[in-house]
């Protein structure tokens, strides 16, 4: 895969080098730019992941494999406007967990705990939605979402404190919090808001359901005289707004500057007077809050939407935040797109059951995508160096700005 791309790029560079001055430089800079390399690496990972899925489909059921693959690719579109709405509905929690993981990445932290933060947030939201009925709409769902966010933040606070003050690696502590969260959520649901006949949480009060925000006029399929509504609601709008807010925080504020600095180089950050411990804790709290909000948004969608299942299984939405963040390169805009993509193929995967395929194939595909995006990170740093090397061969007298890369502080060569 990498050799293919290297080969492809190499040819482009050779062609480019025959072009006159200015535009070539700009194009060359484009190809060398990290943004392009990273994006193309993501796309490649997706393509290879999907191909792997196709291979597995073939092995399981050759006759229907192509049809099954087609269903996956058509994703939510195969059921019209309602299906598209469903894609957005399921993308909503993914955007938030993706933001959660991505935000933590920017600070140099691995938030594998999005699943625990997510379910605790969701449980809190449902709890408030079911039991605090004295609050009128529209405040009811707002308070529920707020509760979800705070609880998620709390769930991120603990690993954050442990890392900042006790040097506990956040990968393990967040994984522990996942399990603690899962059992706690199950316990809380069973104790206070349980619908024992269905083994699910109870329905929230109507005042706590997220408003449709006009989306019910767009995402539905006409069935005779009635509308088959998608469950999508204002949640997607909230998610998009959060993406924009996070983007602004990371790139435009002093707070974002400090967080990124800590993620890149904590020694230099200390040298600059940045409070590293505070940054770590705040970052985990924000990451947790985002995932918690995601849980709230998913579970406050009324009777037709999701309810919490009481099982000893970790929330998949939390883990899927990882590939969303990786594919989106921890950039909020990229995260929105990759969340929609993952949701798209997940919805498609659900339809596979009509063909006797098992929907878990989607998880396999997603895992492959993560794996290949991990591989391609090596490629991401190799390609720009390769291009510089070509440049050096063609223009040996050019400014040698590369010394910084190959020298350590001893300057030995």
């Amino acid at each position, binding site marked *: 895969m990498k050799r293919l791309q290297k080969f492809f790029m190499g040819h482009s560079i050779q062609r480019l080098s025959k072009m006159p001055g200015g535009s070539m430089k700009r194009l060359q800079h484009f190809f060398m730019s990290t943004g392009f390399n990273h994006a193309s690496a993501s796309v490649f990972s997706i393509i290879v992941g999907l191909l792997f899925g196709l291979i597995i489909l073939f092995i399981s059921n050759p006759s229907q494999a192509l049809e099954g693959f087609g269903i996956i690719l058509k994703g939510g579109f195969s059921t019209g406007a309602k299906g598209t709405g469903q894609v957005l509905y399921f993308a909503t929690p993914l955007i938030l967990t993706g933001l959660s993981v991505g935000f933590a990445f920017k600070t140099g932290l691995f938030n594998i705990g999005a699943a625990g933060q997510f379910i605790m947030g969701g449980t809190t939201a449902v709890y408030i939605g079911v039991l605090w009925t004295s609050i009128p709409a529209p405040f009811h769902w707002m308070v529920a979402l707020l509760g979800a966010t705070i609880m998620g933040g709390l769930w991120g606070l603990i690993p954050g404190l442990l890392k900042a003050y006790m040097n506990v690696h956040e990968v393990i502590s967040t994984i522990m919090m996942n399990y603690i969260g899962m059992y706690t959520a199950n316990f809380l649901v069973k104790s206070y808001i349980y619908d024992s006949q269905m083994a699910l949480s109870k329905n929230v009060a109507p005042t706590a359901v997220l408003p449709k925000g006009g989306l019910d006029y767009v995402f539905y399929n006409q069935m005779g005289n009635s509308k088959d509504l998608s469950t999508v609601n204002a949640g997607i709008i909230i998610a998009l707004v959060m993406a924009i807010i996070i983007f602004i925080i990371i790139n*435009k*504020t*002093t*707070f974002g*500057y400090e967080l*990124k*600095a800590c993620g*890149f*180089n904590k*020694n*230099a*950050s*200390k*040298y*600059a*007077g940045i409070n590293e411990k505070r940054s770590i804790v705040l970052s985990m709290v924000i990451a947790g809050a985002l995932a918690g909000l995601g849980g709230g948004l998913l579970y406050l969608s009324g009777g037709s939407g999701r309810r919490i299942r009481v099982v000893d299984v970790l929330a998949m939405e939390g883990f899927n935040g990882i590939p969303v963040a990786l594919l989106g390169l921890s950039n909020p805009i990229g995260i929105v797109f990759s969340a929609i993509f993952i949701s798209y193929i997940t919805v498609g995967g659900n339809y596979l059951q009509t063909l006797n395929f098992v929907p878990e194939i989607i998880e396999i595909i997603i895992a492959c995508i993560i794996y290949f995006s991990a591989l391609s990170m090596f490629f991401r740093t190799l390609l720009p*160096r*390769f291009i*510089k*090397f070509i*440049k*050096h061969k063609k223009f*040996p007298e050019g*400014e*040698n*700005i*590369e*010394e*910084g*890369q*190959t*020298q*350590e*502080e*001893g*300057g*030995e*060569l």
Partner: protein
Amino acid sequence: MDYVIEMLNITKEFPGVIANDDVTLQLRRGEIHALLGENGAGKSTLMSVLFGLYQQEKGIIKKDGVEVKINNPNDANDLGIGMVHQHFKLVHNFTVLQNIILGAETTKNGFLKMDEAREKVVELSNLYGLMVDPDSIIEDITVGMQQRAEILKMLYRDNEILIFDEPTAVLTPQEIEEFMKIMKDLAEEGKSIVFITHKLNEIMEAADRCTVLRKGKYVGTVEVASTTKEDLSEMMVGRKINFSVEKAETKPGEPVFEVRDLVVASSHSTKNAVNNVSFRVRKGEIVCIAGIDGNGQSELVYGLTGLSPIRGGKIFIKGKEITHMKVRERNQTGMSHIPEDRHKDGLILDYSLSENLMLKKYFTPEFQSNGFIKFDVATEYANMLIEKFDIRSGQGPRTKARSMSGGNQQKAIVAREIDFDPDILIAVQPTRGLDVGSIEYIHKQLVAQRDEGKAVLLISLELDEVMEVSDRILVIYEGELVADLVPENTTVQELGLYMAGSKRTEVAV
């Protein structure tokens, strides 16, 4: 001519850089051959090729006139080639003995058999006067002893061709003398030696011949007996360089920076790293703290700048006590710091040049409002500094710091810290790893600061720099100040004695 090793027309490339460009080195049997060049000239790379760590793109290597292929250190070892690297390749929590035998273990059915090995090590140790305790753990012993362990590693493998990469970088002048003697003894025993260095004195004293590299290219090979320091340096740099720093007479004013009874703990022993150190730096004065690496300088600076907590003592800037202030407060009170390790502390390599230049100012009202960064102000500021300090980079303020050369990275840090207009500028090894042009530039800047009436505290290991740049020299040994000297009234030899702890005087504050 009886050449034991010949490296002919070697070219070695890395992505983006040609480290060795058609280089030739011929080593005679039993000679001490110096390999000279500035930082980045390609000396270490060339020897790494000989030692099998890298493979050359072009050129051949011959041993005893026969062409050989050296694909890995095992091949090199089989040919009798051994190498002591500048950064020792010793496993910190293994014993000396384990490090010596690693890779050449004697085993029985896979189980380690240490007795024979131990005997041989003790034997070699006695034969060459390299005393070590085989069961001591590397992280507990001195640098000098670690080096002896590295040398024993080579002798244990019966290496006949010994490569030393900057062997004296971490030794006192006395230890350097001892090392020179060891090298000469080894040569007399018939070993052939290459030693990499950029120190002309050592070449003049110990080497038979010297090969010079410059920016990856081969410049020439000379008989040391018939050349001079000036000739060598001209070959090394390509032009005549002025060894001395131009400096006007100084008229220091009142003390601006005062340190009293500073005590800083050590991270790896119960003894203090800094023990009751007191000194003053006056306006318009460059005070240099000289000493061998590892005698407490790093801890001292970390304590002064607030990066590490201190166990005792007080620090004052212009009479105001800053002992308990956080790093940022100290900056605001007039302290600037050019750190020892520009990649670790001084810069965020993944940030752009302008983001790095505003590293200590991003939170001020000038650069942000209501938490939002004013990027246009930042860019303007960066452009101003780039112009004023001649910082070269690929794309100006937007350049990622990582892609700048070492010299320009350091210039950026110097620019940032000087523009702070500090009362006290602390510069730690500011010219380490830089080319001669950058070194000259930075020395000029330090002197300029001092001429403008700033106080400069310089920490340095390079004796030339210490003698040339400072107005006053304080020597640190094992965490204490043992000398307060004026460059005009002392010699390098005397400095060396103080640095090695063989001599001490009371230091008047």
